[in-house]
């Protein structure tokens, strides 16, 4: 983990209320980054509202920069999304476990990456990681759902990955893209023909619950990336805990800190 103040390199508007911030980072930070890990971001203005830093997935990174994709949902995200080039941001990270990323290439099985809404930031980190390292994405499927077509972001970059073998399907709640419905419908459909698949999913809790159920029913294994509210991001506030199955506890369950043991959990472990 690193703590530093980082300069905004660029701030790009991706849709009406989604922004991509590129921040400077030291080489060490970039080496420690991995798909599914996240950062806690705050401002350096010395003002106390917002008070806590906010967690955002590390979506992509190079040797001396990284990017986050921020959807404006409240005051923290709003403030960060407004920052101009050159302004400093307080960064703490990389935090969390990240996805077990070796599996992207080494498996025979198909790999389904399932993103709901801003879950794409986390899911895309795996794809950018593979792309930026010229790894093959044959057998990898991106199933991506959002509320409407304007919230389907990063598609240009990800479509460029099709040459690596990635297959993309999108869906929107309101049908403003080709298909209407939930991303889990796509997953159910695909798993019917590829029952031996592996699934990584990130999105709102109802979606993850539904993915978990689908995995149970199909017997596929997979991982869920959770986004519980966080105060600290590094395991000291106990604010982000998730009940998970436990072999050692008497009750068969225990609480796990999403920020340190997660945010990515084996799907069958999570007790919603």
């Amino acid at each position, binding site marked *: 983990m690193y703590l530093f103040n980082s300069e905004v390199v660029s701030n790009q508007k991706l849709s009406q209320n989604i922004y991509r911030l590129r921040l400077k980072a030291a080489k060490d930070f970039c080496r420690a980054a991995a798909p599914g890990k996240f950062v806690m971001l705050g401002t350096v203005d010395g003002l*106390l509202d917002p008070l806590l830093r906010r967690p955002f997935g590390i979506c992509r990174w190079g040797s001396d920069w990284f990017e986050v994709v921020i959807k404006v949902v409240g005051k923290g995200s709003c403030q960060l999304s407004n920052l101009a080039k050159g302004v400093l941001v307080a960064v703490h990270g990389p935090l969390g476990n990240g996805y077990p990323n070796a599996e992207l290439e080494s498996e025979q099985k198909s790999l389904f990456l399932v993103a709901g809404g801003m879950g794409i930031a986390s899911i895309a980190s795996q794809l950018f990681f593979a792309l930026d390292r010229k790894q093959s994405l044959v057998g990898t499927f991106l199933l991506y759902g959002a509320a409407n077509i304007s919230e389907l972001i990063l598609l240009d970059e990800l479509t460029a990955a099709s040459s690596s073998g990635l297959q993309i399907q999108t869906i929107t709640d309101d049908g403003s893209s080709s298909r209407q419905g939930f991303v889990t419908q796509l997953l159910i459909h695909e798993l019917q023909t590829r029952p031996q698949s592996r699934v990584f999913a990130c999105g709102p809790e109802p979606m993850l619950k539904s993915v978990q159920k689908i995995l149970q029913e199909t017997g596929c294994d997979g991982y869920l990336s959770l986004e519980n509210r966080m105060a600290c991001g590094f395991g000291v*506030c106990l604010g982000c805990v998730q009940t998970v199955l436990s072999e050692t506890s008497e009750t068969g369950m225990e*609480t796990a800190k999403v920020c340190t043991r997660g945010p990515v959990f084996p799907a069958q472990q999570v007790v919603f």
Partner: protein
Amino acid sequence: MVDLKVEIAPGVILKNPVLTASGTFGYGREYAPYFDIAKLGAIVTKGLSLQPKTGNPGVRITETACGMLNSIGLENIGVEKFLADELPILRKLDATVIVNIFGNNQSDYAALAAKLDGVTGIAALEINISCPNVKAGGIQFGTDPQAAAKLIAAVRKKTSLPLITKLSPNVSDIVAIAKAVEEAGSDSLSLINTLLGMAIDLDRKRPILGNVTGGLSGPAIKPVALRMVYQVAQAVSIPIIGIGGITSARDALEFLLAGASAIEIGTANFINPQTAIEIVEGIENYLKGQKCAKITDFIGKLEKV
């Protein structure tokens, strides 16, 4: 060099007045990657109970204006596991350790005190009689001077460790409670714990916190904390540790002026893990600038308006 040493209880001399507040510093080692925790005055552990506790279900934290609400519900690994797994690490890290304890009733507290008595590597006990997040928990002791005094007297009998009683701000008269526990044998006082608060999710028409109410901490409560520290400092003769909304060395110094011999940093540890050590440095630099050679010459030196 400024002499930052302070005495927070008879015989308990810390290298500086900066402590970390219970529940905001994990078991201590979580901060070791960020700075040398041996450089703090002391670290106060997450509140420990006799048995492990899983805490409250549902959403546990939410931000409010310049503050946060938490309803962690005193989740902790229990005193046994602390002694077996955590204390040895803290000793290796050379940290000065104050153990925060709470129970459901007087005998829990007494049993905890007895268990920790004589354990090497513990500088003092902080008795939480004030946590608003458990129904059958510390809070009833925290609002009634007599109950508080009885509890502290009982704990006092079970341990020779210095006792710091941690007071609740959710009371009509904090001075009465402070005096009662002083009389009952508390060596020191720490204040304040969180203010009881609540937040509502308007669109979902329900409380945000799984536990409905939670404890308010952070800069929002600093004025209340400062007032209580000042009031109590006028009324008792044991040392006081000030807590509540401290995010900077200047905040910390205000508490010292008001009469606190030391301070604890809570919520601010979440925002920047290096806050505590930066405050140690900030205090030293400020006093240097003031040509104050000994911090004890600064403590309580608030002048009349």
